[in-house]
């Protein structure tokens, strides 16, 4: 099991995330006064720093989206009626889930404490057939190969739904690449500096110089659309 997630620490509330959801549902905490960014930031930092299993991230997303829904409802009263039904469904589902989750915890405590054991559980080594060996008449190795080929051919091949691309350089890596280059020269031609690298890295490079411009490390100059993009060091 993963270590407990960090608690929420904001002016209005301090404690676990799911408790906050409960309170919000009972309107004991006014979500319209809470910044959702402040609420989720510590969590996002936490998952960057720790290796969290996807299931746990998923359960956090459920909590976060419930908060978002409740908050949206409070801020936009006209939505209230439409959403009312969905929220009731949602709350019911969460309650149902909670009951089985608790029951499952009990399984965890009891698991393997006093198991009922199958025959030969403590048998030494490998269990062999006690009956006489009887080899099937006329069985050839080729027949086995054919049987398996036929079986595997009958299994439909699952087409992947998502494609993974080879990971190129990250934004941080490309950022530092530009920063290094700009220590030696104060002007760069963007098109020249991205010549010959993959499209994915070209896109990341563009993001990198935008980020640098935002941080006022560089100034960008382009005289006409699709023209030469010049990067000036500030």
């Amino acid at each position: 099991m993963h270590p407990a997630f960090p608690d929420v620490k904001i002016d209005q509330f301090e404690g676990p995330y799911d408790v906050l959801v409960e309170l919000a549902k009972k309107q004991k905490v006014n979500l319209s006064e809470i910044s959702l960014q402040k609420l989720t930031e510590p969590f996002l930092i936490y998952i960057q720093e720790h290796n969290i299993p996807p299931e746990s991230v998923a359960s956090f997303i459920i909590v976060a989206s419930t908060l978002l829904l409740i908050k949206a409802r409070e801020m936009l009263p006209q939505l209230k009626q439409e959403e009312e039904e969905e929220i009731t469904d949602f709350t019911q589902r969460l309650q149902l889930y909670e009951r089985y989750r608790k029951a499952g915890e009990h399984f965890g405590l009891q698991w393997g404490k006093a198991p009922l054991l199958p025959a030969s559980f403590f048998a030494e080594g490998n269990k062999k057939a006690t009956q006489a060996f009887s080899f099937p008449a006329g069985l050839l190795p080729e027949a086995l190969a054919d049987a398996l080929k036929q079986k595997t051919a009958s299994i439909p091949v699952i087409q992947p739904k998502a494609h993974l691309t080879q990971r190129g350089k990250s934004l941080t890596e490309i950022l530092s690449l530009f920063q290094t280059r700009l220590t030696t020269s104060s002007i760069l031609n963007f098109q020249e500096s991205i010549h010959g690298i993959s499209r994915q890295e070209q896109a990341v490079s563009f993001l990198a110089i935008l980020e640098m411009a935002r941080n006022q490390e560089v100034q960008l100059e382009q005289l006409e659309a699709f023209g030469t993009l010049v990067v000036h060091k500030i």
Partner: protein
Amino acid sequence: MNQISQRIEALLFTAGEAVPKTELQELTKTSEGELTAALQELEQHTQESGLTIIITATHVQLVTSPNVAGFLAQFNKDTNHELSKAALETLSLIAYRGPLVRFEIDAIRGVDSTRIIRQLFLRGLVRQLRMSSKAPQYDVTEEFLSHLGITTKHELPNFTELAAHNLS
């Protein structure tokens, strides 16, 4: 015990693992009702014994009795039985509300359960009931019950309440 119960006990013993009820019926040439009666008698017979039977919707298995589970546990050095949080809640849903299809599990958990169900399946803790055209239904196995030290689902805590499909 009557002859059918004796034969079933011997078949379960030689099998060494869970046997489908349909196979027991076929091998002993009995109807569903006769099998149920025979299993009941066998269960009665094992009441004060070191062995008992686990019965699920589809299978029967001869195992050591809860009477001696504490005694045997001392010899069982295998302690690798940790289950993840996701595994526990999925098992709980399947145990109490099963047999059920994956969609129902997803709907209550609020996340896709394909991966976790597959893990449970490979560990022998759940099985698919229908493998033909329709979406497969899942139910817990004898292996699952045996790890909890019980012989039927009905011994699960609050079974009647949590097995009811319309929870208030």
